[in-house]
C-alpha cells in the first residue's frame, strides 16, 4: 500500500501543516482511521432511489386493489416515519448525519408523492391542479429551512422549476416548443434569484447560497441553450447564453468557485458551436468554430483556474 507518511512529516517540519493536521493525515495513511462515510452516503442514496422507484410502481400497479385512500394514508405514514429521526435530532440539537440526511430526503419525496397522488386521485385543486407542484416546492422549502437541509432545498428548487414549466404549458420535453421551455426556465431562474436574495438576509441560512447559485447558473444556461435551438429565438438564446456564461465565469473568479467557471466555459462553448452552425451552414466553418471555441474555452478555464488558485 502506498504511504505518504514521510512527506507529511516533512510538511510538518517545514511548518506547512500543524501537528494536529499531520497526526490526522498520518493516521489515515497508516490505516489507523478508515473512513467509510462516502460509501455509506452512496448506499443511502441508492436505497432512497430504489424505494422511491418501487413505491411509484406499486402505486401504479395496485391502485384498484389497494384503493386510493389506503395508498394516500400509507404514503403519509411512511413519510412521517422518515421525518421522525430528523425531528428527534432537531429537538436534541444534534447535527444530522449524512445518512440521516438521505432518510429525511426519502421522507420528503414520499410526502411529495403523497401530495401528487392525492391531487391525481381526488382532484382537490380542480382546474388549478398544477398548483400541487408549487405546494410540493413549498413543503420541501419549509423542510429545508426547518431542518437546515441543502438536499431538501435542492428538491424544492427542482419542483419549483417543474411548476414554472407546467405554467408555460409544458407537459414533456419532447412534445413542447423550445421557446416555451426556455422562457419558463428563465422565469424559474429569476424566481430562484429573488429567493436567493431574500435568503441572504438570514445569516443562519447563508450556507444555502451555493445551492441557489448552482440552480440559477444551470437553469439559466440550459434555458438559454434551449432557446438557441429554436429558429425563432436563436439569436436571443445565443446572446443570453453567452451573457450568462460570462457572468458565471466572472462569478467563479469573484467567489473562487471553479465549478462556475466550468459551467460558463462548457455552456459558452456549446453556444458558440450552435452560433457557428447558424451563421455558417457549411461543415468546414462549423468545425473551425468548434476548434477555436474548444481551444479558447480551455485557455479561459486554465486562466481562471490560475486566477482562483493565485487568490486562494
Amino acid at each position, binding site marked *: 500500500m502506498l504511504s505518504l507518511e514521510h512527506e507529511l512529516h516533512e510538511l510538518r517540519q517545514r511548518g506547512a501543516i500543524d501537528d494536529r493536521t499531520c497526526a490526522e493525515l498520518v493516521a489515515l495513511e497508516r490505516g489507523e482511521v478508515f*473512513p467509510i462515510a462516502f460509501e*455509506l452516503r452512496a448506499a443511502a442514496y441508492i436505497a432512497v432511489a430504489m424505494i422511491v422507484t418501487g413505491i411509484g410502481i406499486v402505486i401504479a400497479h395496485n391502485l384498484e386493489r389497494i384503493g386510493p385512500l389506503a395508498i394516500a394514508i400509507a404514503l403519509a405514514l411512511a413519510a412521517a416515519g422518515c421525518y421522525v429521526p430528523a425531528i428527534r435530532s432537531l429537538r436534541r440539537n444534534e447535527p444530522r448525519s449524512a445518512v440521516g440526511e438521505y432518510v429525511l430526503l426519502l421522507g420528503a419525496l414520499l410526502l411529495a408523492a403523497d401530495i*401528487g397522488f392525492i391531487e391525481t386521485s381526488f382532484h382537490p385543486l380542480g382546474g388549478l391542479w398544477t398548483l400541487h407542484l408549487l405546494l410540493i416546492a413549498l413543503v420541501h422549502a419549509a423542510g429545508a429551512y426547518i431542518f437546515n437541509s441543502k438536499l431538501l432545498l435542492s428538491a424544492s428548487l427542482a419542483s419549483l422549476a417543474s411548476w414554472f414549466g407546467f405554467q408555460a404549458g409544458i407537459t414533456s420535453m419532447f412534445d413542447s416548443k423550445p421557446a416555451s421551455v426556455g422562457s419558463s426556465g428563465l422565469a424559474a431562474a429569476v424566481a430562484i434569484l429573488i429567493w436567493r436574495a431574500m435568503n441572504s438576509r438570514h445569516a443562519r441560512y447563508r450556507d444555502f447560497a451555493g445551492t441557489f447559485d448552482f440552480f440559477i447558473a444551470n437553469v439559466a444556461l440550459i434555458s438559454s441553450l434551449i432557446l438557441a435551438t429554436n429558429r425563432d429565438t436563436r439569436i436571443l438564446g445565443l446572446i443570453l447564453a453567452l451573457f450568462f456564461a460570462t457572468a458565471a465565469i466572472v462569478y467563479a473568479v469573484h467567489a473562487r468557485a471553479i465549478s462556475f467557471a466550468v459551467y460558463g466555459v462548457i455552456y459558452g462553448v456549446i453556444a458558440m458551436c450552435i452560433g457557428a452552425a447558424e451563421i455558417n451552414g457549411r461543415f468546414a466553418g462549423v468545425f473551425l468554430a468548434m476548434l477555436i471555441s474548444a481551444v479558447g474555452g480551455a485557455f479561459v478555464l486554465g486562466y481562471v483556474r490560475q486566477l482562483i488558485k493565485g487568490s486562494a
Partner: protein
Amino acid sequence: MSTFRPSAAEERWLAVADIAGEKAVTAADTGGWRTASLLPRCAFFFLGILASAALFGLAFLLSSSAIGAGLFTAFICIGVAELLITSKRFFGMGFEEALWMAGAISLVPVFIGPESDRPIALGLAIAFAATALRLVNPLFATCALAAASWRMSLDGGWQAATIAFAISTVIAWLALKKNFVRPSTQRLAQWMTVVLPLGAYLWAKQFNFDPWRYLDREVTVDSMTSFALPLVLIGAAAIALTLGLRWRQHALLIAFALCVVLLAIELRDVSTLTIEAKLIVYGIVILISSVILERRLRRPHGVTSLPLGRDSDAWKIIELGTAATLATSSHRPDSTPGGNELEQGGGSYGGAGSSGSF
C-alpha cells in the same frame, strides 16, 4: 527533474497536495507538474475531445481522405499533448489526455480497413493501451481492456477471456497489498480491482460460461450457471469485504458492492417477489444497514463513519443534482383532472421520481 512524466517523488508530492491542500506543497516539491481536480479535469477533457473531433472533421473535409485526416490529427494532437506534458508539465489535467487519446484513435483508420470488426477492435485496444501506458491512466486501461474483450469475443474466446479476467482479478486484489511507490500505479491497481471482476462476470454471462462444466460433465450448463456463478460471487464478495477492511482499501469495498449487485441480479428469480417489492425491500434493507453502520461506527479510530478528509466539489454537485433528479418526476398531460390518472408501468406523481420508464 524528469520531463517525460513526473518522477515517483514528484508524483507523491502531487498526491500530498491533494490531501493536505495545494498551498502546503511548493512547486519545487512537485517539480512544477500541474494537475487538476475532477470537475475541471472533466471539462478540459471534454474540450480536448471537441477540439480533436473538429480537427479531424476539418482535415477530412479538406483532404477527403480518412487516412490523411487521421495522420494529420494524430500528428497534431499527440504533438500538442506531448508539448503540454513536457514543456507545460501537465499531468492528469484532462486536456492533454483527451488529445493523446484522440490522436492515438485517429491512427486506427491509417492502419486498418473499415470493413472488418477484428482489426478495428484490435486497433482500438492498441490505441487505448498506448494512451494508458503513456499517461498511466486507469480509464484508458479500462477502455483498452473493453476493446481487447471485443476483439477476443469475435473469435469466441470467451472461456480464455473469463479465466484470464478471473485470474487477473485475483492478481489485482492481491497487488493492493503491495507497497506502491507511485500513486498513479496504485490508482491503476485500484481501478482494475473493480473493473476486472465486472469483466469476468460479463464474459461469463454473455457466453453462458460455466467454469464447472469441465470438472463435472454430468451437470448441465443451465443448472450449473444457476449455482456456480452465485457461489463464486458470494465468495468474491466475502473476500473483497474482508480484504478491504483489513487492508483499508476503498476499491475493494466497491468491488464488494459490485459483487453484491451482481449476486442480486443472479438470484433475481429465486424470490417470487415482484420487481417493485424487491426494490422496496432491498432499498429498506440497504437504508437500515447504512443507518445502523453509520451509528455504530461513530468513533475516532478504526473503521469509522465520521466524515474525514475533504469533500470534493464534484461530489457536492452530484449530490445536489441527484436530489433534484429524484424530486422531479415526469409529468404527463393525462395526469390532469379528468384524464387517465394513472399509467401502467409507472406513475407520474410529483416528487416520487416514478417516471414510468422502469
